[in-house]
Each structure stands twice: as structure tokens, then as C-alpha cells.
């Protein structure tokens, strides 16, 4: 028991003094060290969402398509024909900053466990990655090391476990130099009746521990800063966990077989805060208590304290709930898969988590108190600097050489080809991958045994969010949905990963609050509810002057869409000479917050472009029916780099040229060729349509009130764009050289 007179600084446990006092009230006594550490871990942002929960409550989470919303290991949506998709995204930013290979690898491993804990077989991984500039004078070398390490880690884990990495996005910005973002989305397929819950079921049920032995890995951070908390020295503890995809493959097969044979009542991954959070959450969901026998937990190292056992973040571990009479059968199955498995506890009525080390009761806490972290609504205040950047008048000269501008944009790492990265990932194992990474705006998987397809995309233009968090978050949802619609899939639902700085800073809290509001409004408008997500705060770095600066606010959106008939889908590559290039969507383009402005003029300012969510929704509906009717198999949205970059990407992907005239394309008030070519605006999609179908496509879109315009035709080996009096002609092969260069060089 902690003596009140010698109470350690509450911060040692990651608690404030007020929170520590709350623990004392909830327990009716001073907590033991073990108990205080457990409250600290479960009330942390990562487990308890104490700064974000009041905001997250505003997100729409319901809809007929949602089979499982937030609160379980992952969200689940109905895709028809009795099938469902489980999906979730999670960050491993801080571990990856320290040790990129293992940080990223265990990020993949952790989110995969969340998927098969739901009863779904993992079928895909996507990653949203952010790094500092690869050519940064001070941090360039480290940024390249981080990129190579993160790619290696994802590749190592995903390839070995045999789940394809089918997509993702990679962007670069100075604010991520010391704090890269590694957001991993995992996706699984299941039948409705296989849906599992992370629950303890009823009293008398037993808890079975299965998987890797428990070691001291993952025991880092503020909670353990005090030397007296552990029986081992600080130096013995690896800060970052080490992943074992081989073991996880066995765990995956064993868990799914146990579910299939209906041997288990509940399934839970052991993630952050290990046994403490997994058993705590399972008991909480059922409103029950648990007696846990810590001395039975398989250990990797001798003399581990109960605290270390409870809070270890060793990877590849699960907790299964089983009826008492089926324990033997379950253990036999798990041991067939060559896994360590032991009975570690029993479910009790009464709602208390009691921890036994042999006969000694070393912890006794109310389950509800552990799981109901205090939450804080803070005051947000926008940084005046940001207001100034956003409202700044943008005055730049029209560049003389438009060809050079296109080359430069294509060769910038954020726009450039991600093929050198995707080729290091097995993207075809499981033989479901219909559209490989880089070939379209979203990945497409078929669902074996059905005609269905599933489309997946992860997106966020963090520059937009930085300049206007509310608008930027709306853009993130709209772009993710647009990408899914561009392959012919109806957007269904999202998961999200909110990567922000320190929420106690008013300007950061403002970003978080506004971004959540933006997500809410876009999800409501596009009918894509939120089924879960993850929050990563305190992403920040020190600039040259030693000031703490937050990363660009990055609310990554992971979107799932469904195709009625997967054989009817679209990719971005131009396919046939003679096809007509049609632009659908608003006839507008803006300079503000654009990649062009940042890369070519070194200016990150202005308002993100105007977004009309109602038009966006109508665009998606018409795109989906256009592709599903078989009118079009080539589509690509205009995002960073605008119309010219989008056209170049279509030409490069299809190894074909095209001839485009922008004169008749009436932009609102923007007569400048650079704005026409490289300016950005949402809700714009380029299609390549067979000449005899152009009229039908035009009327299909106009029925939904979506404008369209014919821009030119496909053919030859040159990209030719005539804009006003100017021309931009470039060989497709030359453009490919620029496009393929940046990441190939960085990873060689």
C-alpha cells in the first residue's frame, strides 16, 4: 500500500494529482503501486481516451450497414450476401520513431489481432505513413532511415504472416521529421454469424491465455520512470516490443479455428497495457468481475513482478473466454497449433478485478472504475499564426516553363510513384487482390464465393487540415470516399486515426475539436458512419530554436466500400486509343493550400479549396452507377498536383498518351494556366470513356446534377495539353522517369 505521507508523485503513474485522489476515492483507500500503475495505464490517452472521448462521442456511428460500431476490437460492416468486413486503424507513431523496423512491424501485428479477435480472417493491410523530407539538410539522413526501416518492418511482418499489403499513402512534410506517423489499417472478411465479442460472457467462465510468453518488453514510458517499481533494472527493458509474425500466424489460425468450432465465448487481443487492459475491457463489456491468477501466466524471464506481468506489452498474445467444461478441448486445440496456452482466471459476479499471485491478493479494483477514465473538455483556441497563413493573399508569378513544373511535381516524394515501396510488400498473397497498389485510387479485393468486391483507401491531406482543421477533415473523408467510388465501390463506413500534438495546448485542442466536427459533418453527408478508430496525441518535435512544434494535424481516414460485381471496376491507367477523356465535377481549381504552391513556390498558405459535400455525394453515386453499368473502366480523381498530375498519372499507368484542350473548360475566374493545370479542387474525376458511350455517361452524371466536360482523347505516346495560348507536351516515358525517381532513390 502506498503510504499517503510518502505518496510518489502521481505523474510517475501517468496520473495528475486530482486523478490520483480520484483513484483513492474509487478504491476507498490508498492504491497499491500495482493498482496505481494500472489506473495510470488504463486512464492514459491510448487506453482511456481522456482528452478525446467527449469529442469522439459527437461522431456518427450508426447506420443499417454497421454490424459493430466502436467499442470492440474492430468495427464491422455488412457488405451483403451474408458477408461482412471487419476493419480498424491504429497508430504506432512513437515506437516507430525510436525503432522503425520493430515499431512498424508490431503496429501491423497488433492491428491484425484486433481483426481476428472479431472472428474475421485478415485479408488486407493498408498503411498511412508520414515522414520528414528526405532531402532535409539536418534531418534528411534520419528521415531516409526512418522510411527504410518502417517499410522494412511492414514488409517483414505482413509478408511473413501472409496478409497482403494492398495500399496506403505516404506523404512528406517537415513537421514529421522527428515524429513520423505510422498508421496501419487492417481489414478482415467474415460471415455474419462468425461475429465475436471481446467479452467474458458469464460468471464461472474461464479465461485462457494463449500466445507468446510474457516478457518485460513494452514496459517503458512515464509510468515506469520510478526506479522502485520494478524488480529489474531499467536497462533490461527494451522500450519497443519485438514482433514475431510466425507466432502470430499460428495464433491467427488457432483463434479462427476455435471460433469456427464454437469453443470460445469471447476473444480479446492483448495490446496496449497488456493483460490489464484486455481483461479489464472484457470484464467491463459484460459488467462482471474476474479473478486472475498471475503466477500461471507464462513468462519469458524470471522474477517478473505482478506489475510487470499485468502491464507487459509483449506481442502475439490473446485472451479467450471459454465455458469451464470446454477448457480442456480448447487447450488441446491451441497446443496443436504449438502455442503456449494456460487457464489464467475465472469470471465472477460483482464487478471486481482481483489479482492473485499464488495465495496473495495483490490487487483488487472495481472494473468499472478502471475502464471509466475521467475525461476532459478543454478550451481550444486557434493559433493566430494559422489564421494569418490561411488568410494570406497568394501572389505568385506564372512559371515560364509549365513542362518543368509538371516534372518537378511528379518527382516530389509526396506525389511520386510509391511502387518502390509497394513492391516490397506481398500484395497478392491470399489471391484476392483485383487491383494492385498504385493502379487505381483504391485497392480492390474480391470476396471468394460471391460476386462482391471490397474497395479500401486511406487518406488525409494534412496541409488542408493544418490550414483549416474543420475543412481539412471534411476533405479527408470526401477524398477517401471519392477514391473508393473511383474504382466503382459504394462508400460504406470509415475508421480513423487522429494524429495530433499535445492536447493541453489550446491551439492543438482547437485542431482536434474542429477536425472531429469536420469528420462528423462529412460522415453524415456521405452516409459513411465511423465504426472505430484510434487517437495518437503528443506528436511533436523540437525545431532548430528548441521550440516544441506539433506535427501537422493528421486525421487519417480509412474507408471501406463495396462493389456489387467486382468484375466491373475501374483503374486509372488509360487503356485504349480513341477513348474520350471526360472531366466530371465542378469546373474550378484553386491555388490555396495546394501541393503546387508548396513544392514550386515554397508557400504553404491559403484556404483549402471549397468542398460541397452534397455535390460530392451525388458524384459518388453517379460514378458507382457509371462503372457498375459498364460505361467506364478508367477513372482517377484530381488531388495533389491538380488536373495535369492526374492526367500524367493516368498516362503513365496506362503507358499511353493523350491530347487535351482546356480552352473550353470554363474555370470560375481562373484564367491562369498554372491554376488550371496544377490548382486543386475536390469532387473532380477524370474518366476515359469509349467514344460511343460519351453521351450516355454525360447524361448519367447530369441526371444527378454533376457537371461534365469533354477534354480530349487518348492516343500516342505523348501527353499534350493545350491551355489558353500555351502548350505542355511531354513524352509519357519521360514523365515516368520523373515519377519513378524520388522513392527509388531514397530506398536504394
Amino acid at each position, binding site marked *: 500500500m502506498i503510504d499517503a505521507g510518502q505518496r510518489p508523485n502521481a505523474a510517475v503513474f501517468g496520473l495528475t494529482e486530482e486523478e490520483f485522489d480520484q483513484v483513492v476515492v474509487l478504491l476507498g483507500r490508498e492504491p497499491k503501486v500495482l493498482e496505481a500503475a494500472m489506473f495510470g495505464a488504463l486512464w492514459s490517452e491510448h487506453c482511456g481516451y481522456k482528452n478525446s472521448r467527449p469529442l469522439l462521442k459527437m461522431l456518427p456511428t450508426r447506420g443499417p450497414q454497421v454490424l459493430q460500431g466502436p467499442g470492440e476490437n474492430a468495427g464491422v460492416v455488412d457488405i451483403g450476401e451474408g458477408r461482412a468486413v471487419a476493419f480498424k486503424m491504429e497508430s504506432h507513431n512513437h515506437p516507430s520513431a525510436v525503432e522503425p523496423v520493430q515499431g512498424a512491424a508490431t503496429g501491423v501485428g497488433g492491428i491484425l489481432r484486433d481483426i481476428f479477435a472479431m472472428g474475421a480472417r485478415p485479408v488486407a493491410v493498408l498503411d498511412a505513413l508520414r515522414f520528414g523530407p528526405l532531402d532535409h539538410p539536418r534531418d534528411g539522413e534520419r528521415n531516409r532511415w526512418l522510411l527504410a526501416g518502417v517499410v*522494412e518492418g511492414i*514488409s517483414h511482418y505482413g*509478408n*511473413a*504472416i*501472409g496478409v497482403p499489403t494492398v495500399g496506403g499513402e505516404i506523404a512528406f512534410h517537415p513537421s514529421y521529421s522527428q515524429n513520423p506517423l505510422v498508421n496501419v489499417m487492417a481489414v478482415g472478411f467474415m460471415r455474419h454469424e462468425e461475429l465475436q465479442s471481446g467479452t467474458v460472457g458469464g460468471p464461472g467462465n474461464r479465461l485462457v491465455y494463449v500466445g507468446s510468453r510474457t516478457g518485460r518488453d513494452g514496459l517503458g514510458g512515464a509510468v515506469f520512470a520510478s526506479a522502485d517499481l520494478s524488480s529489474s533494472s531499467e536497462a533490461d527493458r527494451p522500450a519497443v516490443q519485438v514482433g*514475431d*509474425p*510466425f*507466432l502470430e*500466424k*499460428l495464433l491467427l489460425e488457432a483463434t479462427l479455428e476455435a471460433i469456427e468450432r464454437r469453443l470460445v465465448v469471447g476473444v480479446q487481443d492483448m495490446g496496449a497495457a497488456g493483460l490489464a487492459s484486455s481483461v479489464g475491457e472484457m470484464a467491463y463489456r459484460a459488467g462482471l468481475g474476474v479473478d486472475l491468477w498471475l503466477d500461471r501466466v507464462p513468462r519469458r524471464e524470471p522474477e517478473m513482478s505482478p506489475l510487470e506481468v499485468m502491464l507487459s506489452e509483449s506481442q502475439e498474445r490473446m485472451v479467450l473466454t471459454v465455458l469451464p467444461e470446454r477448457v480442456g478441448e480448447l487447450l488441446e486445440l491451441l497446443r496443436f*497449433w*504449438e502455442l503456449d496456452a494456460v487457464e489464467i482466471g475465472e469470471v465472477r459476479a460483482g464487478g471486481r478485478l482481483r489479482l492473485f499471485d499464488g495465495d496473495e491478493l495483490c490487487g483488487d479494483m472495481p472494473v468499472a472504475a478502471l475502464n471509466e477514465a475521467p475525461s476532459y473538455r478543454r478550451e481550444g483556441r486557434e493559433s493566430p499564426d494559422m489564421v494569418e497563413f490561411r488568410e494570406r493573399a497568394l501572389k505568385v508569378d506564372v512559371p515560364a516553363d509549365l513542362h518543368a513544373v509538371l516534372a518537378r511535381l511528379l518527382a516530389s516524394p509526396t506525389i511520386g510513384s510509391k511502387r518502390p515501396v*509497394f*513492391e*516490397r*510488400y*506481398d*500484395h*497478392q*498473397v*491470399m*489471391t*484476392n*487482390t*483485383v487491383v*494492385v497498389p498504385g493502379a487505381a485510387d483504391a485497392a480492390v479485393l*474480391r470476396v*471468394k464465393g460471391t460476386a462482391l468486391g471490397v474497395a479500401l483507401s486511406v487518406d488525409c491531406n494534412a496541409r488542408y487540415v493544418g490550414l483549416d482543421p474543420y475543412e481539412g477533415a471534411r476533405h479527408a473523408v470526401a477524398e477517401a470516399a471519392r477514391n473508393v467510388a473511383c474504382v466503382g465501390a459504394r462508400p460504406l463506413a470509415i475508421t480513423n486515426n487522429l494524429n495530433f500534438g499535445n492536447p493541453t495546448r489550446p491551439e492543438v485542442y482547437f485542431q482536434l475539436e474542429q477536425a472531429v466536427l469536420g469528420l462528423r459533418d462529412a460522415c453524415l453527408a456521405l452516409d459513411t458512419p465511423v465504426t472505430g478508430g484510434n487517437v495518437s496525441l503528443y506528436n511533436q518535435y523540437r525545431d532548430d530554436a528548441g521550440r516544441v512544434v506539433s506535427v501537422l494535424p493528421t486525421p487519417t481516414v480509412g474507408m471501406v466500400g463495396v462493389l456489387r460485381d*467486382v*468484375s466491373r471496376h475501374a483503374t486509372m491507367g488509360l487503356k485504349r486509343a480513341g477513348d474520350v477523356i471526360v472531366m466530371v465535377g465542378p469546373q474550378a481549381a484553386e491555388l490555396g493550400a495546394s501541393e503546387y504552391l508548396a513544392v514550386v513556390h515554397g508557400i504553404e498558405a491559403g484556404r483549402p479549396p471549397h468542398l460541397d459535400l452534397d455535390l460530392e455525394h451525388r458524384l459518388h453515386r453517379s460514378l458507382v452507377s457509371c462503372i457498375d453499368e459498364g460505361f467506364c473502366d478508367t477513372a482517377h480523381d484530381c488531388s495533389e498536383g491538380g488536373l495535369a498530375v492526374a492526367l500524367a498519372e493516368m498516362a503513365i499507368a496506362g503507358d499511353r498518351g493523350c491530347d487535351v484542350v482546356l480552352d473550353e473548360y470554363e474555370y470560375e475566374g481562373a484564367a491562369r494556366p498554372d491554376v488550371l493545370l496544377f490548382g486543386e479542387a475536390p469532387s473532380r474525376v477524370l474518366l476515359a470513356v469509349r467514344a460511343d458511350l460519351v453521351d450516355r455517361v454525360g447524361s448519367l452524371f447530369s441526371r444527378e446534377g454533376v457537371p461534365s466536360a469533354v477534354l480530349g482523347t487518348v492516343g500516342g505516346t505523348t501527353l499534350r495539353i493545350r491551355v489558353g495560348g500555351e502548350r505542355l507536351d511531354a513524352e509519357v516515358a519521360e514523365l*515516368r522517369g520523373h515519377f519513378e525517381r524520388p522513392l527509388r532513390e531514397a530506398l536504394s
Partner: protein
Amino acid sequence: MIAVIRFPGSNCDEDARYALERLGGDARMVWHREAGLGRADAVILPGGFSYGDYLRTGAMAAQSPVMAAVRDFAERGGPVLGICNGFQVLTESALLPGALARNERPHFLCRTVRVRVERDDLIFTSGCRKGEVLELPIAHAEGSYYADPETLARLEARGGVAFRYCGGAGDDDAAQSPDARGNPNGSVAAIAGVVNERGNVLGMMPHPERAVEGLLGGSDGRRLLEGFLARLGSSTVNASGPSAVEA
């Protein structure tokens, strides 16, 4: 029936079964601890990371109980096809000569490559013609075939190379020398697949089971596997059927 051997860490086992069944074949999974193959007409060693590839790729699998049965089966003339990690298991088991080393550029590589069929007289390749170029996916970090000069000379002399990487119109890797064009991993003599002297044990790095449907972007693997299944189904080839090891 084709026995698909499942080691802990295999991950293309289900893909192989799916492809075979889709093409009308009958596949059964055989766990690595089983000592027999049942009434197998052929054996497939699938891709993956058997035993985590922790010692050397394929090395642990080569010591597993089921491999004794596979060896026995091969010695009786039964057809054995090793794909990717299965190829590595076959060289580690000395059922095929040579070894598979780390790729020349030492990273995992997943892409579609072109391979030229060098033997069309094998039970595995009867659906193809000699000299024909197939587009097949590869996905490996350790697929660089190596044999010492003497072994290589013997291998070439007896026609032991079944598939060879070759450049083509789709080969855009300008960084490579013309000799290396189309050779994705630095394999000696651009070797992508090797067959034993008797012609009944084939190892290949490309994944034919990933290329059996146009929907997934390619069907050249289909011809290969269909030809194999057709020959297995015809009575003339059934050398292994009656003598197959009983479980």
C-alpha cells in the same frame, strides 16, 4: 488427390488449394507432423515462411516428419512441385540441386515477371510449349538461385532448368544491365525453376497459383496447373497412385 503440405508458417497453402480446386483438382492439406501422405497422386510444397524461416529459409521444414514421406514419395517417382518457399524446402532437402540466396538487391520483391519455359516434356509443364513466355508473379526475398559452376554445368547439360527469367516489353528496369534484364533477383543463369534428373521434382520461385484468373490480372499460371492436372488425371502417368504411401 494432391497433397498440399502445410508447415507452421506456410501462407500460400490455401491459395494453392483454391487454385487447384478451381481448376477441377482435388486437394488435401497435410500437416507437417503427419508421417504419411494418404493416397496422394502428387505433392505441392506451397509458399510461405515455414517455421518462420528463422534458421534458413526452408531448412527447418526439410527436417519435418512429413518431409520424410515426401522424400519417399519422390523416390517412387511421385510428382512433387515446390513453389517459392517450397522450392527452398526442396533444395534444403537435397531433392533438388543448388540453393536459394538473398536477392541481389537484398529486399523482398513482389511483381509480375516473365519466365521462358525451357522444358515442356515434364508432367508439370505439359500445358506449355518450349520457348513460350509466361507472365507470373513472384514474391520473395530469398529467390536468387545459386549453384557452383560444376553443379550448374551438370544441371544445364541434363536440361535441369525448367524456367528462366527473361526480359520483355514490360521490363522497364532500366537500371539493370541488358544481361540482367528480366532477372529480378540475380539468379545464376536467370534460373527461375529447376527439375531433378528423373523429371518428377520441380521447384520454382514464381507463383502459378496466383495467376489462374483474369480477374486477378493474369492467367498464365492456369495453363501450367491445368496441364499438370490433366496429366495427373490421365492413367498413363499414374506411376505414383498405387504405390503412394498410406497414412
